[in-house]
């Protein structure tokens, strides 16, 4: 607004403005507009960037790493390997869409896996009941985060930084820092490993866990885009005060988001038992950061209210494709880490650039 204020009379030096480019507000159709059109296209559809990056990455690694990368076997393996971080990224997206951040997602997941495992494997509780306890537990853990954010008014970063440590400590206490062995799970509660089963088609090996990940994203996408609740989530994330003035019960919306996120973490817990085989209290220690990585690469704005949850799915897949491709090309682990670092920075830089399209 301020830059459109007319120049005051008598200030000669501002007369040069008359000669300046005045086309800012016009709809130009010259060659330069290709980039601008791209910018606004991306602005209208933020998932486009991760989709393009994913397609490009698959193509490039297909060329560089050869047939081994481009096989049905490898592509489905990537799906398998990202499935847990993918589901966590779905939970993380919900929080980030409300302009929050959740550092405790992986800790909730591991804690719920340990609880379900302890009950079903060591205490003879029927596996379905153990899983229900885990789902309730995950939801309660999410509600605790939500309570700290909405009622105690702590910033989400601080709330979940605290609960991350608390949940991690509880997990070590309950598990004695000791894994529950795969064989013991098979013997006592095979249902816990349900999502480790695979459907084989030719070379492809699709695990139930991979399918679950896609389903979780599909359901959440529907909830966010086709229901009033979803619109409220976006509105709260975009501008909480405005949403409140528009009559949205923002605290209640936030609480529901945190509870749902905790529930999704419990889903991830069940899937992780199938994926890993055993229940390891030490695994996924950096799962929170990996989930944030997937969300950010997926083009969801950390400032809230912008981006599609499907972006996080693509973000997780991009990370998986990069790791697999670099590995098959014989690149050392530390350079894989290096590459992911650049991906994050470039993804956020692109996001900032796209945001300018509306300015």
């Amino acid at each position, binding site marked *: 607004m301020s830059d459109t204020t007319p120049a005051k009379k008598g200030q000669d030096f501002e007369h040069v403005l008359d000669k300046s480019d005045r086309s800012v507000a016009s709809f130009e159709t010259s060659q330069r507009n290709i980039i601008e059109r791209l910018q606004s296209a991306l602005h209208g559809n933020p998932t486009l960037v991760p989709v393009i990056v994913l397609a490009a990455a698959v193509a490039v690694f297909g060329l560089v790493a050869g047939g*081994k990368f481009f096989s049905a076997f490898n592509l489905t393996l990537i799906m398998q390997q990202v499935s847990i971080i993918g589901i966590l990224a779905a939970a993380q997206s919900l929080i980030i869409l409300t302009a929050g951040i959740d550092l405790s997602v992986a800790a909730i997941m591991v804690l719920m896996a340990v609880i379900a495992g302890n009950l079903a494997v060591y205490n003879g509780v029927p596996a379905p009941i153990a899983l229900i306890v885990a789902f309730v537990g995950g939801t309660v853990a999410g509600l605790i985060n939500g309570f700290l954010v909405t009622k105690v008014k702590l910033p989400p970063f601080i709330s979940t930084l605290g609960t991350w440590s608390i949940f991690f400590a509880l997990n070590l206490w309950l598990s004695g*820092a*000791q*894994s529950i062995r795969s*064989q013991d799970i098979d013997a006592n509660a095979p249902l816990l490993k349900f999502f480790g089963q695979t459907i084989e088609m030719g070379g492809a090996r699709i695990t139930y866990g991979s399918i679950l990940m896609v389903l979780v994203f599909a359901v959440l996408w529907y909830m966010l885009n086709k229901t009033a609740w979803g619109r409220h989530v976006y509105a709260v994330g975009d501008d909480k005060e405005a949403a409140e003035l528009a009559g949205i019960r923002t605290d209640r919306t936030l609480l529901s988001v945190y509870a749902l996120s905790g529930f999704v973490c419990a889903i991830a817990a069940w899937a992780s038992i199938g*994926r*890993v085989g*055993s229940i390891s209290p*030490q695994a996924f220690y950096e799962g929170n950061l990996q989930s944030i990585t997937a969300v950010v690469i997926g083009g969801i704005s950390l400032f809230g209210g912008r981006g599609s949850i499907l972006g996080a799915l693509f973000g997780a897949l991009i990370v998986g494709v990069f790791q697999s491709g670099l590995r098959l090309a014989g690149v*050392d682990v530390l350079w894989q880490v290096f590459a992911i670092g650049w991906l994050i920075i470039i993804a956020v830089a692109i996001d900032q650039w796209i945001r300018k399209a509306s300015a």
Partner: protein
Amino acid sequence: MKQLLTGSAIALALTASGAFAEDISACLVTKTDTNPFFVKMKEGASAQAEALGIKLNTYAGKLDGDVETQIAAVESCIAGGAKGILITPSDSRALAPVVTQAREAGVLVIALDTPFEPTDTADATFATDNFLAGELIGQWAAAKMGDTSQAKIALLDLNPSEVSVDYLRNNGFLQGFGVDIKDPKDIGDEDDARIVGNDVTNGNEEGGRTAMENLLQKDSGVNVVYTINEPAAAGAYEALKSMGLESQALIVSVDGGCPGVQNVKDGVIGATSMQFPLLMASKGIEAIKAYADTGEKPMNSEGLDFFNTGVELVTDQPVEGIPSITSEEALGKCWG
């Protein structure tokens, strides 16, 4: 905390009864308070301290790599007038200054499990010979295979930092198997065509599974799998099993934790090298007692720059010429 309380209670009791041992106190500083390995260590130290009438204070970092808490703990021990400190350094170099400070104050410092760099930063080191631990499982795997010319080896290591325990076990295994290891302090510099590749596991099941999948991607014919520890081995087995390949590969590991030994019994792990954390700690307390009584410092094992607390090969498929114990026997000695 409980340990601290018991420690103080004992000290109080001793003071009350007027025993002379009251002024011998010692500290145990571990990497974490939760890893069963360190829990066992604490048990060993507490039991021995109680037997010898030493007041023991225990400290631990919040997680592996928590250097600050360990530095603060050593400082408290110096201030508290401890006669000796047993420590598993979270960082082999970063703790050197505070340890030197302790030794200048006349405190006997013994590194347990993890040596300092350089080793003589501490008065002594009581540890597992990790190179030997690797060598034993390497020899076992080679003997088990017979003809090793068709071997396809997958190496599942700890993390990208290549810390000492990581390269010692990895290269020990390769040497035992009969591979030219080149630089003994470097992982992955070997050019033996039988090696399919290295990957990192972070020492847990999830990492073990992913790393194994990655290496099977390179070559699905992998038939020998070295793993840094038993959780990583369990993960590797899951990966093999998911592809129906579990019977083609020998999995070997290091540690001797009870779930790991159980996995040897169940045929998941072919052989594992067992280490003895309890012994490290109890020997350490004895050394502090001896130092307090006579001023004598512990000696290193012959030919090594540390005191070797022993390694035993655990397998249910013993091979000629390599002494081993069965998983049944090992279950009585395992930690965690």
